[in-house]
């Protein structure tokens, strides 16, 4: 058995563009679920609207493809109606941070037993590359032609502040670490949030000097810093480069959770 068996073979190849990182994140999530040895009939995948939210359609298990931004709201209902089910939510940044922001905050506050995998491609990829709440400062998109002037949303900080039990951030370059992080999130009772930065060669990379797919993946390799190293640098009083993204396990708590299987 490998994670390949979780795919709906008749639906592949999927519609993602060549080089899109969403497929990588689905691979890592399914590999972690495979290690948990969950039964297919006890696993539910929920998603909203967007590129990333097409993921449950390619997985051979029960799935819900819901309205824009309401994936966590639907998943809360599924979990509370039947706590025996294992619920995994796939969302994107436009789904989770923009229109579904309030559901996300209250999912974290309730600390309901979900695992949320957010594929953050820093843009609205499906609708033509509009700027999203997580588009970094100075990045081009079709609605920010002179560079984004806004401060991006740090979803992990938001989840930590709102009270999620497990928060980590990885990228599509760090596949093995991401697999372990999703596994830890699945094992943790309570709300676990895993943010995965993914490349979007069609909408984001094309406008932001990542002409090839590998350019953006290489950017993830060179412009990310482990949380332990960042803490060490701050402790020693050395400067942290401003464009570095902090990756790693950012929070692990043991707060009381809602909807845990008795």
């Amino acid at each position, binding site marked *: 058995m490998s994670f*390949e068996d979780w*795919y709906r073979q008749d639906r*592949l*190849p999927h519609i993602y563009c060549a*080089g899109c990182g969403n497929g*990588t994140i689905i*691979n*890592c999530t399914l590999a972690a679920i495979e290690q948990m040895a969950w039964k297919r009939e006890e696993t539910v995948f929920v998603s909203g609207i967007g590129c990333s939210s097409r993921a449950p359609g390619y997985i051979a298990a029960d799935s819900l493809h819901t309205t824009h931004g309401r994936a966590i709201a639907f998943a809360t209902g599924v979990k509370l109606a039947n706590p025996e089910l294992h619920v995994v939510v796939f969302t994107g940044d436009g789904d989770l941070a923009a229109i579904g922001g309030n559901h996300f905050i209250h999912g974290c506050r309730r600390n309901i037993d979900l695992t949320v995998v957010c594929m953050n491609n820093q843009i609205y990829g499906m609708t033509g590359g509009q700027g999203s709440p997580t588009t970094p400062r100075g990045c081009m998109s079709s609605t920010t032609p002179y560079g984004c002037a806004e401060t991006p949303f740090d979803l992990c900080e938001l989840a930590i502040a709102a009270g999620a039990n497990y928060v980590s951030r990885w990228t*599509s370059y760090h596949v093995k670490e991401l697999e372990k992080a999703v596994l830890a999130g699945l094992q943790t009772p309570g709300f676990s949030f895993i943010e995965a930065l993914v490349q979007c060669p069609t909408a984001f990379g094309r406008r932001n000097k990542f002409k090839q797919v590998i350019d953006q*993946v290489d950017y993830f390799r060179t412009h990310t810093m482990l949380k332990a190293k960042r803490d060490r640098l701050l402790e020693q009083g050395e400067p942290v480069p401003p464009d570095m993204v902090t990756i790693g396990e950012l929070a692990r708590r043991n707060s009381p959770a809602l909807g845990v299987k008795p």
Partner: protein
Amino acid sequence: MKLAIDETRCKGCNLCTKICPYKIFKEGKKANRRGIILPELDRPERCTNCRLMHLYGRTLCGVCQLTCPDQAIHWVEELPYEPHKVAIEY
């Protein structure tokens, strides 16, 4: 075990050519029937997972399979008595 690329799924993004620690995948030259340039295998007998998967009973490296966004890379069992090369690296 041996490496195989699924021609019906690969979209030619060439992520595998950069991600493999042994540089087994290299960029192809000829487009296939769908106009997609598939990566080629450069001495695939060097793959750790192909040689040691059965001995250890688990996937050893597997980064290419996890990274491939189109689920095109997998390992297939060899036929009985299939001739295969052995690569020795110094």
